């Protein structure tokens, strides 16, 4: 449930707001729907990570990955998929931390 919400918010916000807006939204979503630390973190991680994966693939496939390949060379990586992997991991990490923070803040106010 939390995962689905974060994924949805991340994709919608990407078209209208700066990228870090998704972090605030993940924070807010976990504030509402967060249950355990593990659940919150991994929902945030997967939510933002999958959103970034989808958005990146949507751009790079019609491009036949020519830009991603050049950027990989710029970073001295052997293949463009590594740029994609890093993108997803970074999105996931910051998404996971945001959701976890949401949950932990929620707990402060619980009881």
């Amino acid at each position, binding site marked *: 449930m939390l995962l689905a919400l974060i994924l949805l918010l991340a994709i919608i916000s990407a078209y209208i707001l700066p990228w870090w807006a998704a972090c605030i939204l993940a924070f807010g979503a976990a504030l509402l729907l967060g249950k355990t630390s593990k659940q919150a973190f991994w929902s945030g991680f997967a939510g933002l990570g999958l959103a970034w994966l989808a958005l990146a693939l949507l751009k790079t496939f019609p491009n036949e990955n020519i830009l991603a390949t050049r950027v990989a060379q710029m970073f001295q990586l052997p293949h463009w998929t590594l740029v994609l992997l890093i993108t997803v991991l970074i999105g996931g990490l910051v998404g996971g931390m945001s959701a976890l923070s949401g949950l932990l803040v929620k*707990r402060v106010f619980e009881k």
Partner: protein
Amino acid sequence: MKIVKAFFSLAITLALIWALQTKFGDIPPIGKFLNPATGFWQNAESKNINAAEQLKLKGLQGEVTVKYDENRIPHIFAENEHDLYYAQGYITARDRLWQLDIQTRSASGRLSEVVGAKALDVDRYHRRMGMVYGAENTLKGMMKDPVMRAVVNAYTEGINTYVRQLSKKDYPIEFKLLDYAPEEWKPINCAFLLKLMSETLAGGTNELSMTNVLNKFGAKVTNDLFPDYPMHESPIIPVGTKWDFKPLPIPAPPAAFKAQMLTGMKMKDRVEGIGSNNWAISGSKTASGYPILANDPHLDLTFPSIWYQMQLSAPGVNVYGVTLPGAPCVVIGYNKKISWGVTNVDADILDWYQLKFKDESRNEYWYNNQWNKVTYRIEKIAIKGQPDLIDTVRYTRFGPMVYDNAKMGEGHDNIPIGNALKWIAHDESNDIKTFYLLNRGSNYADYREALKFYNAPAQNFVFASADNDIAITPNGRLPLKYKDQGKFIIDGSDPANDWQGFIPFEQNPTVKNPPRGFVSSANQSSTDPTYPYYINWQFAPYERGKRINDRLGAMQKATADSMRVLQTDTYSIRAQDILPTMLKYLDASKLDENQLAALEILKKWDKFFDADSEGASVFANWWTRFYRATWNDNFSDKQMPLNWPSMDRTEELLLKEPNSAWFDNKKTPMKETATDVLSRSFNLAVDGLIKKHGKPGNWQWGKVKKFEVRHLANIPGFGSGNFASGGTGSTVNALTEGHGPSWRMVVQLGPQVKGYGILPGGQSGNPGSFFYDDMLPTWKDGKLKELLYLQSPAEKSARIKTTLTLSK
């Protein structure tokens, strides 16, 4: 406990977001750059292109139709001139926005603003040599002319319309990498582009290193080693052309002067190999009976390309060719009636004046027997992450004092003497008008009229028309000087050393329909020594010009394809001139197995610098080592830069004075001759080739000579990568060290004009576009594409892929 946990988690999250938004050193802000919503993924262009597109743009007066062909070359049809140049600006910005930005920043000394202190040296250099000062003056000239003012303003408006509607995700990738935002265009930026061209083509200097030579070796040796006309030459204006004008009196040189102040800020050295070819042959020598014109300007080859192809059409004009992003109009191209092209003249339009100051304050300098006050110009340089640098530049009647000892000199703070720079690019001018008029020209008279407006950098303007006229004019504002004025540093106190006006435009060298049936230029001497005025004492070596003239002279029933073949010709006139002599002096009995194999390769070599030629590699290495070994002992000086004698003079020495003392290496007790130097440099060349490339059989020129088209900011992965190519600096196909034909064009004039051309890259400046490098393979193959010259927006062509309609 809960609070602590929550606090830490929040703190880490915020720190992470901050870190992902921040640029550390040269690494782009990772979050900004990688996130797919606004980061680089957004620059990945789709392969699927819409066949029709419509945009509403503020400021247009009518409707503009832009037809994009299969290489994404725009064919612009406007209803009036305002909309035409507005659309040129808009369309150029769409494909080349970052190039527009970085060129302007470079020329105006504003790189530090975005990349920090590492660019401070180059920024300061550009400010102090008067790039901004010159651009301000040029802007005045352009704005005085109501027609050009309207053109430049419309062009500016078009670029800014694009910039204003741009959202972050659409910024070109380089902005995202360097983490800054595009800014609005200003009319002065058009002038900055011209200054940049002047710097590239007429901003090199060797006065200081020549003066050092004069001081070290004396006048006799200097005159002998640095003659004012080369041994080998095939001048642009054919020998024997009559000068049918009464020249102005030539200024008299003042009494001998030798500059003493020999330290200086490092200016750009003159680079051999930045040159170009152009020619036109008359209908009497072509298959069609109409002239053919060809041009290939040699510049730094980069992605994006320095040129942008366009067709510009409005009532009164329909022109096709290449434009310079940052300047309105087509610079090299053709219309229905005429075609024109340019190569660099290499005129001496940059001089150094030594100043004598009254005292340490350097506020007054001696000129015409009195003290004159300097004026001050403040240059404020913004530096990313640091306070601004305020730089004061002293201006004299000649121009800015570029080298300021107190601030920049190392160990020379006690010398109160600086040099002032006089440079044609500082003057008021209206150069773009020349291209505006050529775009609309229809005959020889129009060509001559258009050329009058051109100032700098001086260019050899070649011309051909459907009326069967051909012509060439080394053109620009050329100062009236005494012979060799500016070969060395000049005494700034004597009014006799001023530029005494300019050569009248009508008296610039020119030739129309010469009896030989063709005109050509390849940066060699403009004229033979009979021309009454002094233009320069040195020009590019004659080899390319000679080869072109030999081939064109022999040509009959030429076609556009004959021109293409000549543009990609790699025959070495240098090898033809000197290789037999070099071989004659080489003693085969002293050679080992590998050296003998190399000698065999050379003997069988056809003298073409083809990519698969091994002979080219041996010859090029041998000659370069011979040249260096000849001069190194006398002309390498750690204390001061010395200009080296030319290739031509070295060849003359080898051919005519093989026992010259210059061949003797001062560091050995023996007395060497050319034979010894040749033998040693041959062995070293062979050793070097074996060490780097293995045994004979692996020495293909395309492998030995590294070549690639780099990204403009040299970003790894954004260039072409290394590829094998033929040619060298002294062959017509002058591919060397990142320089080469930046645009190849051939135009067959006639009732129905036909153009052919190719760029070493693509139209788009976006590395994520399919049109970033799509023309490079054709260019590498030495082929041209037939250019699509539409007569109306309604004309059907299978090559049109997208129609873009712009309206208000």
